[in-house]
């Protein structure tokens, strides 16, 4: 008799969807998420297309479904460390890192006020800071604080422990390991932004006013580090001319050898963010192909109506800082115009792509991957990849793959 439960690795949009679909048909589901919150990358966006909802929109519905469904159990700060057995009968070892904050935490923020240590916020892609003890983000689920033990000074400090009226902090919490028995595994480990430091000719990570599209999401997000104001990192100035560099590291055999699917749409979406704040800002989008497939075309059309948004066919291959002004000089060939041009911008956004997260940090699971790190097999073992772990996709299609794979997982455990 095969085990009826399903394990979902990764609690992003795909993982949540897959987990809930399976749980709502009656299966016990475990979500293993390595971050301190569920929701994945979508939680970091300001809005998401096609309808430009804030992420809380789609995510909160799913969290509500989790809250109301006792069959879904989730572990944050957790990672799979070993998988044995076979389809219908897997034994999965999971390591849970200490959060140092238990569920007494009322999210009152007292501890943050007293904590002396600051850290770069990885949630904000380093454009913002938090204390060593912090709330993962404004809409975090679970809404519980967490301590970054890489920077926390520990028991020698313990200021937070003192400040916490609810005995929510335990600086001596230890790592735990648990074992789960499940019948099938869904891999929803999603993506990481491609490392811009590798894009040396584009000034990635070197030039202050060259940022990534995900950093722009955080700058524009109302609860982000600038309270939603899009500004230049170097001096906080309002940008008047902004360039988007499409395919920054994607469709490139020296970097990501596939199209990241969403970055054209993401940049078009970003035009709406900019227009919202700066009615007169000029935007130039440098592209190879504008990929707004299917019904997204409408979105492209809307942006094309904007006279101050120019779209230039020709990839940017050189970006340099103008000494002194902090401005950025972008070189591209305007192919349709037949000219190689240098243009000056206040802010440049690299539309970097999505790299499968397991290409950067491998998963303790034996499953076939392509040379880029996308999962291409596993069905025969009852292992199914969904969302951006399978291929680069938008949220909507990720959710579709999740639903489909949940069905396959159910078939596996019912066999």
């Amino acid at each position: 008799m095969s085990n009826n439960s399903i394990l979902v690795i990764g609690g992003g949009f795909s993982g949540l969807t897959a987990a809930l679909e399976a749980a709502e048909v009656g299966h016990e589901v475990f979500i293993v998420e390595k971050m301190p919150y569920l929701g994945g990358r979508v939680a970091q966006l300001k809005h998401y297309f096609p309808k430009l909802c804030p992420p809380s929109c789609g995510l909160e519905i799913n969290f509500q479904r989790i809250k109301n469904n006792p069959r879904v159990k989730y572990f944050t700060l957790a990672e799979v460390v070993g998988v044995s057995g076979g389809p219908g009968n897997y034994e999965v070892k999971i390591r849970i890192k200490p959060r140092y904050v238990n569920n007494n935490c009322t999210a009152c923020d007292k501890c943050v006020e007293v904590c002396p240590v600051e850290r770069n916020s990885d949630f904000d892609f380093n454009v913002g800071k938090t204390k060593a003890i912090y709330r993962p983000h404004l809409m975090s689920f679970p809404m519980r604080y967490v301590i970054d033990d890489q920077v926390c000074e520990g028991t020698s400090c313990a200021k937070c422990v003192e400040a916490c009226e609810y005995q929510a902090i335990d600086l001596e919490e230890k790592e735990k390991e648990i074992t789960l028995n499940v019948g099938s595994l869904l891999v929803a480990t999603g993506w990481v932004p491609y490392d811009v430091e590798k894009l040396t000719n584009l000034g990635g990570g070197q030039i202050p006013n060259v940022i990534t599209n995900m950093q722009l999401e955080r700058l524009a997000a109302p609860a982000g580090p600038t309270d939603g104001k899009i500004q230049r990192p170097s001096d906080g100035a309002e940008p008047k001319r902004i360039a988007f560099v499409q395919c920054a590291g994607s469709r490139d055999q020296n970097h990501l050898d596939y199209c990241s699917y969403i970055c054209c749409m993401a940049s078009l979406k970003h035009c709406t963010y900019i227009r919202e704040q700066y009615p007169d800002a000029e935007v130039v989008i440098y592209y190879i192909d504008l990929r707004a497939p299917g019904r997204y075309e409408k979105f492209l059309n809307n942006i094309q109506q904007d006279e101050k948004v120019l779209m230039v066919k020709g990839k940017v291959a050189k970006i340099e800082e103008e000494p002194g002004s902090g401005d950025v000089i972008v070189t591209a060939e305007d192919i349709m115009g037949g000219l190689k041009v240098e243009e000056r911008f206040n802010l440049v956004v690299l539309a970097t792509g999505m790299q499968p997260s397991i290409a950067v940090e491998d998963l303790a699971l034996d499953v076939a991957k392509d040379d880029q790190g996308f999962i291409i097999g596993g069905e025969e073992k009852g292992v199914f990849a969904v969302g951006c772990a399978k291929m680069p996709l938008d949220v909507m299609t990720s959710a579709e793959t999740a639903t489909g794979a949940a069905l396959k997982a159910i078939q596996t455990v019912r066999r």
Partner: protein
Amino acid sequence: MADKKIGVYICTGCEIGENVNMEKVTEYIDEECSPAVMKQVPFLCGKEGLAQIQNDIDGEGVNRVCVAACSPRVMWDVFDFGPDVVVDRANIRELAVWSFHDPGLPEPEEDEMSDPLTMMVRDYIKMSVAKLDRKTKPEAEPIELDKTIMVLGGGLTGLTAALDTAETGYDVVLVEKEDKLGGFAAKMYKQTPTKHPYEKAEAPSINELISRVEANDKIKVMTKTSLQLIKGAPGKFKATVKQGDEEQVLSIGSVILATGWKPYDASKLDSLGYGKIKNVVTNVELEQLAKNGKLNRPSDGQPVLSAAFIQCAGQRDAEHLSYCSSVCCMGSLKQAGYIRELNDEAKAYIFYKDMRTPGVYENYYRAAQDDPGIFLTKSEIQEVTEGENGKVLVKVTDNLLGEDFEVEVDLLVLATGMVPTIADEPVLKLGYRLGEQIPDLDLFDGFAD
């Protein structure tokens, strides 16, 4: 359910106690709602706080609990006292205490009035109590659900849905209006790659899918069948279908809509020569010519030594289809291969606006273009005219080659787009007051939302 007995528990932690005049609040609530129990607790979500509530439930028979504390987004799992106790959260922390900014109103003169924050808090609690007071627990009415699923449309989508439904253990009725299953996929000569490394067109896999569906005894296939009417409600639909002259009523739990698409009406593309020039065909027609092994010039049956593909023939155009059909760039790359395999000297031109092969399909683009006989350029079509000997002349501007030019080809293929079948026909035929289709927001040009 037994008598309602309401308990109000006000948390004084998280800055609530310090900022709210609790005396005034309790006084007011007592007066207005007179709950059975009302308590102020310093740390309501903590062990002791919860124990107090539990005590009152056990001892006093409290069965409706107003938790006047934080937002239900926090501590959502701790205030759970079993199925017989109804809990409501009065969010006085986030919605009142934490978000309150003193508007600087003058102190109330009359003594019974409170400061604005206290007024907010007491109103939230009053609303919560009112809610608890009026709420009745719904009684479930178990109904017998039909577990059979109807799949409407037997194309690739419908077949896949039917098979997976059956393999998960449900009975399926597959309704297809044509006499054969497979939809457009069954009319294709080759299919674009479906597997890593996504580089080569494949033999269509649809026949295997069809035979698996036909062999599955949980799936009842009804071809040449049309749907007449769906009545009832989810879990309890009655679907009237007509096969030949015979009508039947099926009991169905839910419906999967998979009626696919139809090609855009190419007669509207006369500006691109369709209908005027014999050797202008659509991509759908080309697919069938290739499938039937007759990829020749329609005008005279002569072999095709050169073909041009015009992408977005109608799509991405406000006058025709305002959306992109997603598949026709891939389709033309594939079909250019058909032209090339006829003759090693054959040439295929593809004129695109943007080459849309997103995601991993980029691999196919790269592999397909690596052929000396395939010529691609971004461009705008200026004019299509008829040349000598049945040739077609295509003039293009705004291209990558640096100047306007024309090519002369044996065959011009218009990469036309897909129109959803539900765009102008009420396919679902719902016997509902709201209309025969599922109402949607009209966001997606006729595609279901």
